[in-house]
């Protein structure tokens, strides 16, 4: 469990990044911090592994104040994935993934074994192990980033817009795989993004942040869509411009769901649909439709 006790951060030049944040992040679940750029969400995330120290308040990790922990040791115990992968350009893929186990003084053979295991886990061809990051595609680099964060088997995984720099198709693929991975691993994931669709796709809990990381709403994706706390959240969700308004119409094989432009998105609860989609996509589509049940009849904006 990660606990923020009335945490704030001001920079020496007077910039206020975080005002007063008091919240708890559950263990074993994926919590998404979503907010526009400059909302202080990254600052909040980086307080967990002491890349940023708060000006006020304290951050507790499993009941322990992180300020009392050695930052270097702390960072080795927490996985961190960042935008643009943050891989070391002078190390091969395998060497990058081995980084933390080696920093933790694990034997070389053991570190190598773990690195290979993680490559498999995130769906990377073992042949890529000897390549340098610059020889990989953006999506592959992000997979390496995830593998590196997992290599030391941390309980907590911090992800700072990890899929922000890849194209939408690859992003969707990486998101789906993260959901699949999390279903096996049950890490405490704190995921920062400015993309509400990403938040809805990944979060067990979503925390919507305003300026200075002020909490606008905390809830499950379904709760947020069904009952946005205020106009800010509604706007962030894109509920105001009808972006999430879906319409149902009766088709031959079931109820066809279309978006606001009338583009068909899929079939609602088709009974003989192959079970290739994991809980994520399927369940969320239904919950979004459910939330907007009232809008089914009326035309979208």
């Amino acid at each position, binding site marked *: 469990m990660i606990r923020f006790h009335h945490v704030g951060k001001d920079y020496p030049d007077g910039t206020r990044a975080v005002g007063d944040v008091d919240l708890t992040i559950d263990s074993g679940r994926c919590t998404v911090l979503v907010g526009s750029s400059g909302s202080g969400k990254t600052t909040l995330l980086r307080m967990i592994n002491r890349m940023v120290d708060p000006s006020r308040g304290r951050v507790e990790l499993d009941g322990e104040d992180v300020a009392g922990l050695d930052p270097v040791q702390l960072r080795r115990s927490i996985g*961190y994935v*960042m935008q643009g992968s943050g891989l070391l*350009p*002078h190390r091969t893929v395998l060497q990058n993934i081995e980084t933390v186990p080696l*920093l933790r003084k694990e034997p070389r053979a053991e570190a190598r074994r773990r690195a290979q295991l993680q490559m498999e886990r995130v769906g990377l061809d073992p042949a890529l192990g000897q390549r340098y990051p610059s020889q990989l595609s953006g999506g592959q680099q992000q997979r390496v980033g995830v593998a590196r964060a997992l290599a030391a088997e941390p309980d907590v995984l911090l992800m700072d817009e990890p899929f922000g720099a890849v194209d939408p198709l690859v992003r969707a693929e990486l998101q789906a795989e993260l959901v699949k991975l999390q279903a096996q691993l049950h890490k405490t994931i704190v995921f920062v993004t400015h993309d509400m669709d990403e938040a809805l796709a990944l979060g067990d809990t979503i925390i919507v942040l305003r300026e200075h990381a002020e909490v606008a709403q905390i809830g499950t994706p379904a709760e947020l869509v069904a009952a946005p706390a205020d106009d800010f959240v509604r706007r962030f969700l894109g509920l105001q411009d009808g972006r999430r308004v879906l319409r149902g119409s009766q088709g031959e094989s079931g109820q066809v769901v279309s978006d606001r432009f009338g583009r068909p998105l899929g079939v609602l609860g088709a009974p003989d649909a192959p079970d290739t989609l994991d809980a994520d996509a399927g369940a969320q589509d239904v919950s979004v439709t459910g939330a907007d049940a009232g809008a089914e009849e009326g035309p979208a904006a």
Partner: protein
Amino acid sequence: MTWILANLPLLSSRLLEHLGLALPAIVLSVVLALPLGWIAHRYRVSRWVLVTLTGLLYAIPSLPLFVLLPALLGTGIRDASNAIVALTLYGLALMVRSVADALDAVPPLVTDAAKAQGYGPLALVLKVQLPLAVPALTAGARVVAVSTISLVTVSGVLGLPSLGLLFVDGFQRGITEEIVAGLVLTVALALVLDALLALLGRAMTPWNRADPTTRRRAAHTPRTAAAPRAGEAR
């Protein structure tokens, strides 16, 4: 030509003596510049002080420095150590700035990511920043090497044995071949050392060969800016 053929043993011993002065100075200036350059890179105030002061060293004319140093160090004017200290100072003048610039050029995103993975302060410098600075460091070291090779010749005026002594001797005795031989060997030595350092830099950065875009960037690192003119005495 006959003079050269008749004096091959002399030429080769002058060449070795030249290297004996230049190599320690080159190695020393690079090794000493690393911590100094790191301090300059790390703290803004020290950067100004260090880069300016070491840079000023380069403004001291070389002949007076060779003459002055023994008074300060208590060495003999014809001691090799005297020349090596003077040459190291000139090397530092070029290299401290190179090291600071090279470290500055390491992408902050990479440094930040490494820190977030749990690199300690020392490991961060030794295993992340320095390796990534190698292309720019190599460029700096090449300038230092070429500059030092040419500066060594000045010590010939003091009678210190090196390729420079061939010019002095050639002038005094009117042997044109000896002057030409000294000049050609000096330039050749500088070129060979420069090429060797370039190869070493490449060998140390296999990741740059893997990526055509970074290779081009590395080749563009400024090395002509401070390149000394061969054989010129200050």
